[in-house]
C-alpha cells in the first residue's frame, strides 16, 4: 500500500499525537538532571519540583509586597489589554474593511494609506508610539491595534470585494440602497471571515502585547517574564510561557466555537468546510 494511503487507526493516532511531547519531556528531564547534578544551583533547566514550587508561589500565595496573587493579576492585566486591542481592531477592521470594500471612492482614498502602514513593522516605531501615546494602558493597546488592524482591514476589504457581484446586483434589484446592502447583505456575510482573520492575527497580537509590556507596564504576563529574565528564573519563565500558550489555545478554541454556533450557514455541510 502507498504510504499516502495508510491511515493510522484511532488509538494509533492518539499515540502518535502524544509521542513527540513525551519524547520532549523525557529529554528535558534527562538534561535537567544532568545539569543539576553538576551544579545544584543551576537555573537554566530547573527540576520539576522547582517548577511546582514556582507555580505554587506565583499562583496560590499572595505576594509579600502587594498581597496579590501574581499569576492571576498578570493574566487579568494581559488579557484585558489583549481583548481591548483585538476587540477594537476587529471593530475598526470590520467597519473600515467593509466600507472600503464596498465604496470605490473610500477605497481609493484610504487603501494605499493602509497598505503603507501595514508595511511598517510596529516594533520599529515602538519608541515613537510610546512618545505619542504615553506609557499608560493606551500605548499597549495601541501597539496591538497598529500591529493587527491593517491586516484585518485589508482582509475584510478583500472579503467584501470578493463577495459575488451577483449578490450585490440582486440586492439592488430588490430595491436596497448602499446602506441597506451594507448592513443586511455585506456585514453579516463577512462576520465569519472576520472571526477567522482575528484567529489568525491572535498570534501577532500576543507578540505585540508582550513587546509592549516588556517596555512599560507594572503587571502583565510579558512584564513578569521580562522582569525575571534578568535573574534567569526559568522556573517561573517556562510556566508563564506555557500558560500563555494555553491562553492562546483557549481563545482560539472559543472563537472557533462561537463562529460555529453563530454562523451555521457558513460552517454548514453544504458550504464546504471552512475550518
Amino acid at each position, binding site marked *: 500500500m502507498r504510504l499516502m494511503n495508510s491511515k493510522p487507526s484511532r488509538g494509533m493516532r492518539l499515540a502518535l499525537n502524544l509521542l513527540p511531547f513525551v519524547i520532549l519531556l523525557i529529554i528535558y528531564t534527562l538534561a535537567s538532571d544532568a545539569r543539576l547534578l553538576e551544579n545544584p544551583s543551576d537555573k537554566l533547566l530547573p527540576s520539576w519540583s522547582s517548577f511546582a514550587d514556582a507555580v505554587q508561589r506565583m499562583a496560590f500565595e499572595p505576594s509579600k509586597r502587594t498581597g496579590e496573587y501574581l499569576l492571576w493579576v498578570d493574566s487579568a492585566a494581559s488579557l484585558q489589554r489583549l481583548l481591548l486591542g483585538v476587540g477594537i481592531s476587529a471593530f475598526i477592521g470590520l467597519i473600515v474593511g467593509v466600507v472600503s470594500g464596498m465604496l470605490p471612492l473610500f477605497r481609493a482614498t484610504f487603501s494605499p494609506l493602509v497598505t503603507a502602514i501595514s508595511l511598517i513593522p510596529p516594533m520599529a516605531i515602538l519608541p515613537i508610539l510610546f512618545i505619542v501615546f504615553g506609557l499608560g494602558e493606551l500605548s499597549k493597546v495601541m501597539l496591538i491595534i497598529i500591529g493587527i488592524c491593517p491586516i484585518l482591514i485589508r482582509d475584510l476589504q478583500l472579503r467584501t470585494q470578493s463577495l459575488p457581484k451577483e449578490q450585490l446586483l440582486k440586492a439592488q434589484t430588490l430595491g436596497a440602497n448602499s446602506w441597506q446592502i451594507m448592513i443586511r447583505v455585506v456585514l453579516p456575510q463577512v462576520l465569519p471571515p472576520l472571526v477567522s482573520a482575528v484567529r489568525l492575527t491572535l498570534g501577532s497580537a500576543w507578540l505585540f502585547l508582550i513587546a509592549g509590556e*516588556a517596555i*512599560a507596564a507594572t503587571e502583565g504576563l510579558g512584564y513578569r517574564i521580562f522582569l525575571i529574565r534578568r535573574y*534567569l528564573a526559568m522556573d517561573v519563565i517556562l510556566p508563564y510561557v506555557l500558560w500563555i500558550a494555553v491562553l492562546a489555545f483557549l481563545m482560539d478554541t472559543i472563537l472557533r466555537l462561537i463562529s460555529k454556533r453563530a454562523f451555521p450557514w457558513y460552517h454548514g455541510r453544504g458550504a464546504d468546510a471552512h475550518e
Partner: protein
Amino acid sequence: ETKSKFRLAWTIYVGWMPWDYGDASGIVKKWADKYDIDIEIVQVNDYVESINQYTAGGFDATVMTNMDALTIPAASGVDSTALIIGDFSNGNDGVVLKGAKKLADIKGQNVNLVELSVSHYLLARALETVSLSERDVRVVNTSDADLVAAFTTDDVTSVTTWNPLLSEITAMPNTTKVFDSSMIPGEIIDLLVVNTKTLADNPKLGKALTGAWYEIMQTMQGSDAEAIKARSIMAEASGTDLEGYDAQLASTKMFYSAKDAVEFNNSAALMSTMGKVAEFSFEHGLLGEGAADAKFIGIETPSGIYGDKGNIKLRFNPAYMQMAIDEKL
C-alpha cells in the same frame, strides 16, 4: 506654569527602589499632601524609554544616571536639574570575563553590554587603566534583560553590566570580575532629575520630593523591623529577596543623609567627572550632530561650570537637599 499634578518615573535599580517603597508606604503621598500637590509615581520597565518620555515632556521627574542626564535630555535641549543625588555606584557596575583572570585579557574579545550606557563608559574607563582603547575590543550591543541568559552561552566571553545582572553573572562558575565601579568611585552617579523650568515654577514639587526621599532614606536604613520590612518590599519589587537586595546595596554608596549628598555635590570632583563623561559622550556622538566639541553643552555645578556657559542644560543644584539639612521642609 504652576500646576498641581506631577508625574515621576522610576525604573528598577537598587538605588531607585526607594521610590517604589515611598509610593507603596504612602510616604510620597504624605509629603505631596503637605504641599497640596499630586505626585504620581510610575514604574517604567525600560530605562531608556523612561528618559525618552521625560525628554518628550511625559514626566516631570525621572531617575537616571549622570551620563544619561547629559546625553538624552540635556543633549535634546531640555534644561534639567539634578534635584537629588541618591547614590553613586561603588562596585555595582563591573566588567566580567569568563575564564581569564585579569582585565588585560579582554583584548580582542567581544564585549556584550548595553551600548552607549554607563556600562559603555565604565568599559572605556577600565580599558584606559590597562592602556587599551575601545578599538582593542568589539562592543556588541545586548539588551540588559537578556545579558544573563546571553552569558550562559559559549560565544559570550565578556560582559560589562550593572546589578542585579552583575551578581547573577558573577555567581556563575568560572567567572572573574576584573574591574568594577569601586575603582572609579563617584563617577557613575544616580540622580533624580527634574525639568528645570517646572522646578522653578513649582518649588513645592522639589520640596515634596526631597522631603519624601530623606524620610524614606531614614526608614530603610539599619536593621530594625521597619527597615527590614522596607527593604524586603524593595527586594521583591526588583524581583529578588532581602539577601540579594542587601548585597546590591553593599556595592552602592547610598547617601542616606542629605549632608553627604550635598558635600559630594559641592566637591570639585563632580565637575571633573562630568568633564570625563562629556568627553566620552562626545567621542561616541551622543551630544548630537550639532556638537562641535565636548564642551558644547554647559554643565553647572557648585564648583563651576563645565562647557558652554551660554548653553547650560544640566544643573547640579543642591538648594533643595540643603533645605533637608536645614530641616526647612
